[in-house]
């Protein structure tokens, strides 16, 4: 085709290098931010070109290589890229949403000390993310996989003088590394397993073509996919490795939107989609994924109930929504999972950027009034819709989308997931039930955040309350575009059951070639009548409405209700407020024992035992020497006595021996 896939990650890489090396000298924010945004936009244009090229083409898989990376015997790794419908969707999302968020950052990061540093990191992140989605082999994916982890580390720790930011950055990287351990183990096992069948490869297409060599449902494939899933858990913040994501909110808000909502955290979902053939062959793994996803969805949603920091609410919401995506992957609804990934990228990015706009305004007002209040605490907000109409409306639309209200994007993607959990051959009513409850909770806590922020009585300190401005154009334009996408983005995936205009499920048809191979080996399908599907749809709308109504009752009608509720169940509230004490539990189970073992191995074992033996040998040698030195006294008569004794012993030995 065009053979210019490499340009897509190349543009942001150039932007990152220029801003990183020269940004300090350039100083001009417009130049720095403009350059970063422009590079993303170029990348977006190339992505569009390739997307439309692929659409027009009969062939649905294109690979290109720009050289060999490692060539050692039967390990041959290229710097290779892969364009297929799946990666085409991903590059559009990454570069499209990426461009908007870069644009947003120009306004949001205005006046920050490390402005150039921020844009350099953000471009670098985009580059790594594009490597991740474009790599045609697992190792190029892994370079992106770890690369986004690095950028996440850098951007969470952007305010590095804050200890909490440093801690959060380190935690994110280390927890991700636990996942990477899984990824590596899976990759190595797979490489060896296929190799022992005569196929030495890490190329995704070749893996797919040769997957049938492995025994479907066998131990090996289960181990491999479980290892990969551990990797996905780390990157996509699933139980038990989700704890880094809420802390990652220490980073600037555009980072939260781009990395910790729209793109990086979905890498795990994408990876499963990329290796769908392998996962489809491992029903045990799929079931594990579905249940972990469901558990994460409901668990994170429960924590979302009690958070007062607007970004933390969104963070737990992201964890929960990622849980939905994993539920989809687990029941074999690969298309639905990717679909939700895309719609989620739109509405969650919009929500995060909206929260950023609010924080920006609050910060401005507090700064104006010389106050030190927390600009992210929703308890200080309320009634903001008067001051920030655009932010309010875009936030409102995105809330409708995430709550799954009819004809907003989230409606189509979430319902497709729930339908598959209910009806798929790999589905389970338990998963469906949990998913439905989590959907209700989502609607509740999202509208809770909406009401607390934009409605009701304004609780901002009186000195600051009239100085909250609506944000500027660089901030509101991305908000409006994303809100638009969050509204109509779902229409490309209309399910057949309600397809009255016979548009067809465009998204499904588009991705079908990617998942056809998995279907050939293991048929996974959703079976059920259209009427059941429509009934479930109505049910989930009702569930969503119930959640919204609940939030309305508690936070609009009876503002004192939440207080009463916590007073009634103080223990429950405390546990949820403290995030079920999972961080404390991990500290107790892993972090502290590791430190204690380390200290023991060093002070107790290394210094005392190992070095003790070493020094002991030295002391013994010294001691023997010290004892024997008296024999060398220098007195002639001593030596004469010794000689006589010697002679007597020798002679005696021969005479009597």
């Amino acid at each position: 085709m065009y053979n210019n896939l490499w340009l897509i990650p190349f543009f942001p890489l150039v932007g990152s290098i220029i801003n990183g090396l020269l940004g300090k000298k350039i100083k001009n924010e417009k130049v720095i931010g403009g350059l970063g945004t422009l590079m993303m936009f170029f990348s977006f244009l190339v992505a569009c070109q390739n997307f439309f090229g692929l659409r027009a083409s009969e062939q649905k898989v294109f690979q290109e290589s720009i050289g060999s990376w490692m060539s050692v015997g039967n390990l041959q790794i290229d710097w290779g890229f892969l364009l297929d419908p799946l990666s085409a969707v991903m590059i559009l999302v990454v570069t499209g949403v990426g461009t908007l968020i870069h644009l947003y950052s120009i306004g949001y990061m205005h006046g920050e000390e490390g402005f150039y540093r921020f844009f350099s990191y953000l471009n670098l992140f985009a580059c790594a993310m594009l490597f991740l989605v474009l790599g045609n082999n697992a190792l190029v994916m892994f370079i992106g996989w770890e690369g986004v982890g690095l950028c996440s580390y850098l951007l969470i720790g952007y305010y590095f003088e804050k200890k909490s930011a440093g801690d959060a950055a380190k935690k994110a990287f280390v927890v991700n590394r636990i996942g990477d351990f899984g990824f590596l183990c899976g990759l190595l096992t797979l490489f060896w397993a296929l190799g022992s069948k005569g196929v030495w490869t890490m190329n995704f297409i070749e893996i797919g073509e040769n997957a049938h060599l492995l025994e479907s449902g066998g131990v090996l494939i289960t181990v491999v996919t479980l290892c990969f899933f551990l990797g996905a858990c780390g990157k996509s913040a699933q139980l038990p490795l989700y704890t880094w994501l809420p802390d990652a909110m220490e980073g600037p808000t555009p980072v939260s939107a781009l990395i910790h909502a729209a793109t990086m955290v979905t890498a795990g979902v994408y990876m499963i989609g990329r290796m769908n053939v392998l996962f489809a062959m491992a029903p045990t793994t799929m079931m594990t994924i579905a249940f972990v996803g469901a558990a994460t969805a409901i668990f994170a949603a429960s924590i979302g109930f009690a958070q007062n920091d607007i970004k933390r609410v969104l963070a737990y919401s992201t964890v929960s929504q990622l849980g939905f995506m994993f539920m989809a992957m687990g029941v074999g609804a690969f298309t639905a999972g990717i679909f939700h990934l895309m719609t989620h990228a739109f509405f969650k990015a919009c929500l995060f950027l909206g929260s950023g706009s609010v924080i920006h305004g609050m910060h401005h007002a507090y700064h104006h009034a010389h106050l030190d209040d927390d600009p992210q605490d929703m308890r200080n907000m309320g009634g903001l819709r008067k001051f920030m109409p655009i932010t309010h409306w875009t936030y409102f639309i995105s809330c409708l989308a995430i709550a799954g209200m009819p004809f907003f994007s989230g409606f189509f993607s979430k319902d497709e997931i729930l339908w598959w959990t209910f009806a798929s051959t790999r589905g389970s009513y338990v998963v469906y039930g949990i998913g439905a409850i989590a959907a209700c909770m989502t609607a509740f806590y999202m509208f809770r955040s909406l009401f607390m922020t934009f409605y009701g009585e304004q609780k901002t300190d009186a000195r600051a309350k009239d100085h909250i401005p609506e944000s500027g154009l660089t901030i509101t334009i991305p908000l409006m575009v994303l809100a638009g996408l969050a509204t109509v983005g779902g229409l490309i995936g209309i399910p057949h059951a309600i397809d009255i205009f016979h548009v067809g499920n465009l998204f499904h048809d588009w991705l079908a070639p990617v998942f056809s191979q998995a279907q050939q080996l293991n048929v996974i399908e959703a079976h059920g009548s259209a009427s059941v599907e429509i009934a479930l749809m109505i049910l989930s709308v009702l569930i969503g409405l119930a959640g919204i109504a609940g939030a309305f009752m508690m936070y609009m009608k009876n503002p004192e209700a939440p207080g009463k509720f916590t007073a009634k169940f103080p223990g429950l509230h405390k546990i949820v407020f403290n995030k079920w004490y999972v961080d404390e539990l991990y500290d107790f189970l892993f972090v502290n024992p590791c430190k204690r073992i380390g200290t023991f191995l060093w002070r107790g074992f290394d210094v005392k035992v190992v070095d003790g033996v070493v020094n002991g040998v030295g002391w013994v040698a010294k001691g023997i020497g010290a004892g024997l030195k008296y024999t060398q006294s220098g007195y002639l008569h001593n030596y004469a006595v010794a000689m006589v004794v010697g002679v007597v012993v020798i002679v005696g030995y021969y005479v009597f021996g």
Partner: protein
Amino acid sequence: MADHLLSIMTFFPLLGMLFILFIPRDNDGLLKGFTLVVTLITFVISLPLAFNDVFTTSGGMHYKEFSEWINIDGFFQMNYNLGIDGISLWLVMLTTFIMPIAVLSTWKAVDKNTKGFMALLLLLETGMLGAFVSLDLFLFYIFWELMLIPMYFLIGIWGGKNRIYAAVKFFIYTAVGSLLMLVAIIFVYYYALQSGAPINGFGIQEFYMLDLPYNAQYWLFLAFGFSFAIKVPMFPLHTWLPDAHTEAPTAGSVILAAVLLKMGTYGYVRFAMPLFPDAVQTFIPLLATLSVVGIIYGSLVAMMQEDVKKLVAYSSVAHLGFVMLGIFAMNLQGMAGGIIQMINHGVSTGALFLIVGFIYERRHTRMISEFGGLAHKMPIFATIFLIITFSSIGLPGTNGFVGEFLALVGAFESGLRWYAVVATTGVIFAAVYMLWMYQRVMMGKITNPANENLSDLSVREIVVMMPLVLFVFWIGIAPNTFFEKMNPAVEQLLNQMNNNKVAVVEIQQPVVANLLETK
């Protein structure tokens, strides 16, 4: 000149050392400048080696030089026998490359008895290069011992507070190993002499062809292996390392980490394994276990260190564990990975010791608790430090990843799968101890007033670091430059070992390992 390139390269530093004797002892600048020039010229002399394509086509020895040295007919013969293949090539290049950097690092750090320091550095370089290019075991032994002496003095004279203890420990430890090796070398020689095998002095290529009986191999491998294991160092023979590193001056630490430790791993690749191919099989489970223990143990102990330099020293134990694991995989990927990881460790850990040196020169302390928030005052330093940190962690795209990954691939393909799985947890620990250290030193607010007025890196210091940063990315992104010259040599070595086995001894595997196999 090409006929004697290796000799010229090896002895040029020694020649430089002789000239140094004529430079007035109080002329610090001239002494350092002269030494820098000598090491740079040595590097230039060695450059044609790296660009010679003969290594890509043939895995044998090249640039061979031979002349008889001592010959007592029928009783003892040793030769001046040099040559390099694609394996020693890169270790030679690493040595000539790291020396000018080490010299540059002394600019401000060394001010007492500079003359002696510089003379010893050059003597050390000759010793190291000689050891890498020797094809005669006895010659190798001479160079091996020759390295020991300058390093002993470098630590003992220019070291920190506890330098005497560290120097003596370093010396005795290494000497004990060396003596065992010497006995083994002599045994091999006289065994060959008596059996009437065609030998050429202590030439190792002829020794490779010996059919040593298994029980002789067993003891000989123990002696060689013990000596090299001390040098690597492998757990539990590692305790000399933290002491030596902490006490050594920066240049000493850099050379110790970058080159001297590689003598141990190189010794396994060049001598212990191909000379005793049957005994190796017996010891692989033990050695692989010790490698993996080293990775985990080194990481855990590194994590809790309060002194940056000690932390880096313990991290060396972990990194070398990966090297050894790769080598013991005894296949192309593992060996190539292990060897490239030797180079990587030289680059990354060498760079880390330089970094520690930079802050030590500014603050005269290495305690982590004394620092914090340095990124404010030293942004360039912070960036370089971060790059090296991630190289040490093994981030893909940097050199560390290529080596670790290949070592693991190799271990997976051989019988060492479960060892590899445990070793892979090392990637988690590496992130923990390095990032925790980086956070405590560089991030946060400046709490210690002593750090308020720190200056960022000087031009000289940036020049010192740049080549290392370049190689971090070069090996990370285009490692084929190195593999294309290394692989033929590794393949030849592996073939040799396989052909030369007297009896095939199955690798003993833990029972659990069969779980995957049967499936």
